[in-house]
């Protein structure tokens, strides 16, 4: 019933509009809904490929009969496009916001969004979501909610059982989890892999850096927005680990989200990587072989990587309706349903026990990967993410790439990273 109410309201509104014709109070509304009573309200939604279920997006028009949802997949320059559409006051009604870094930027620009706490439905649903995840999309005082969580990104170890076997490493998830508990265990296994079969353990050094960084409790800034990247041991340790991986020749040097990575995954080019659950479709589509890859606990402990949000922009003519659609899409039931196909790990704990989430996966050789994902999700402790983490992280990853690919001196690269990060912050904050 709660779902149907807005539709009746909108229909009535539309018919009144038709009857009254030109009523000043209603023209704005009528224009945006297509100017005539027969037409549906068009709600636009932007998202990344594989970040929402196409099936559920289709079903929106069944749950909201008066709505025509135009869902658009936006490409790699999503964030750039979103900000430029906001700038032009032409943003979609609903937008996905990806990565914890970017949501921090959007919280900073929260006046571009509708405060979702305005709507009683959202206030009531707040308790259904993981509180740390929910808070990532709120202003520090908690009074302004920019977005509703989509998924979380508990990290696990994905590993190629064929290569692990050849290298004399265990292949059973429990044994792998037990053997590769820490980063030094993981590095030792990588050396063994290289010695025995000369295959790199890691896809690239950046994955190593990011995984180790995310396992920390503090990143580039403290909660007073003071930069700490130059001294934070978490950053330095992650950096050193990545450098070590490079120096020992343990990475294949293929970047994620490229054809080269897909090809390497499919051709046993690297043996493992630490990644969030949303890497499942990436892996499946890159390497169609079933039963080759399995999932174990991530060495070094649990962490959260990415995971998106859905926000309603200030440009929406139907903010309440848009918020309801977003909430409907992100209900515990729907989140659970998206998990098996897209690996989107729910932000609603009520989903975790649902049978659909705890099935053995054919792709992972019959393993129920939720065992490790849920353990990781439970252990997540978030540090502070600033609106500038994205900027700083790009600079560090570029310098790391120079070390890995062009043999730049690691110390010089580190110094350059600090210097460039300082410079870029000076530009942003000038």
């Amino acid at each position: 019933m709660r779902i149907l109410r807005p539709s009746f309201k909108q229909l009535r509104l539309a018919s009144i509009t038709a009857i009254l014709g030109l009523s000043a109070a209603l023209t704005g509304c009528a224009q945006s809904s297509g100017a005539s009573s027969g037409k549906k309200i068009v709600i636009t939604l932007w998202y990344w490929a594989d970040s929402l279920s196409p099936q559920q997006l289709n079903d929106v028009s069944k749950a909201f009969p008066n709505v025509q949802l135009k869902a658009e997949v936006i490409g790699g320059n999503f964030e750039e496009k979103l900000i430029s559409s906001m700038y032009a006051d032409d943003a979609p009604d609903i937008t996905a916001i990806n990565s914890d870094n970017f949501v921090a930027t959007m919280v900073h620009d929260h006046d571009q969004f509708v405060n979702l706490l305005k709507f009683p439905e959202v206030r009531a649903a707040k308790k259904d979501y993981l509180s740390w995840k929910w808070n990532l999309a709120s202003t520090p005082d908690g009074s302004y909610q920019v977005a509703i969580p989509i998924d979380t990104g508990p990290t696990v170890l994905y590993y190629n059982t064929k290569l692990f076997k050849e290298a004399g490493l265990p292949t059973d998830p429990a044994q792998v989890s037990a053997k590769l508990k820490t980063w030094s265990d993981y590095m030792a296994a990588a050396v063994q892999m290289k010695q025995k079969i000369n295959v790199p353990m890691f896809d690239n050094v950046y994955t190593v850096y990011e995984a180790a960084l995310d396992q920390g409790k503090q990143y580039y800034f403290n909660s007073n927005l003071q930069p700490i990247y130059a001294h934070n041991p978490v950053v330095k340790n992650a950096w050193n680990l990545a450098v070590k991986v490079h120096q020992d020749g343990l990475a294949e040097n293929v970047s994620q989200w490229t054809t080269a990575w897909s090809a390497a995954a499919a051709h046993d080019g690297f043996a493992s990587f630490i990644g969030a659950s949303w890497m499942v479709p990436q892996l499946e589509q890159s390497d169609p072989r079933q039963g080759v890859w399995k999932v174990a606990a991530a060495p070094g402990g649990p962490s959260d990587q990415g995971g998106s949000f859905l926000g309603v922009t200030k440009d929406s003519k139907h903010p309440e309706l848009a918020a309801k659609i977003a909430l409907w899409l992100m209900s515990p039931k729907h989140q659970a349903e998206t998990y098996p196909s897209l690996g989107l790990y729910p932000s609603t704990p009520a989903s975790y026990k649902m049978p659909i989430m705890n099935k053995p996966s054919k792709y992972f050789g019959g393993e129920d990967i939720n065992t490790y994902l849920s353990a990781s999700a439970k252990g997540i402790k978030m540090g502070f993410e600033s609106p500038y983490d994205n900027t700083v992280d790009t600079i560090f990853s570029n310098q790391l790439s120079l070390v890995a690919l062009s043999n730049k001196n690691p110390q010089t690269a580190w110094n350059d990273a600090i210097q460039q990060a300082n410079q870029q912050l000076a530009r942003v904050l000038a």
Partner: protein
Amino acid sequence: MQDRIGKIHKEVQKMVRANTGKSALILKPILYVCLAIWLVFSIFPFYWLIVSATRDTASIFAYPPHLTFGNQFLKNARDLFAAIPFLKSMWNSLYVAGLSTALSLFFCSLAGFSFAKFDFPGKKPLFLIMLGTMMIPTQLNMVPMFVVMKSLHWVNTLTALIVPSAASAFGIFWIRQSCESSLPDDLLHAGRIDGCGNFRLYFHVALPTLRPALAALGIFNFMGAWNDYMWPLVILNDPNKYTLQVMLSTLNGIYFKDYGMVMVGTLFATIPLVILFFIFSRKLMGAVTIGAIKS
């Protein structure tokens, strides 16, 4: 480098002279081999594009590579049309390129004709100002143009791609040159005696004579607009508004795992221009060389 060019030139001269002699039997093949190598370099990418468009990702990245056609073409094409509004973007490109070319031809010929055949106060400074505007690189203007488009409410519209380029200094210069070389004053006088006003003179006398120049300028303009990438990338946000080039780059960014599909998209984006070139190749190459030799 000049030394090398000199040697080559000498060789060529020798070959020319030896055309009827015996040494042509040896030199001719060498020359043809060199040309053939460059031919392969030019053409092979097109061939490989068609090959990959007919294969799935796994077999595109097989090792050693397959150099023959596969049978996945229809599947790739279906996937392409299902994944993104590809035809829409093709239409957008056609619309933008067509309309901006039409407008540009009209405004440029009108202004070029005026600068060539009329004497009016301020003509010289105005013409120099116009030429001077060609020196300004577009990149300088990119950021403020975006702001201008916002105040016109043209962000994320195709209008933003059409209007700013509706009259180009290059086009006006081009038409002026053609008017001076191919539009005799007598013809205009005759038109004047027949009672033509300025516009009718332009429309009935100048335009028909300028047809070849307009055709060349039109192809230039159309190809430029069709292939434009940076400005559409800046200004368009909604995939339904994307031009073909922006769509192609997005396709490459999102569907890198389905390479066969990306290649079909690339193929479809290339075909229209190849056809256009096939029809107008002489005209276009003529235009290119005239532009270079005249200036």
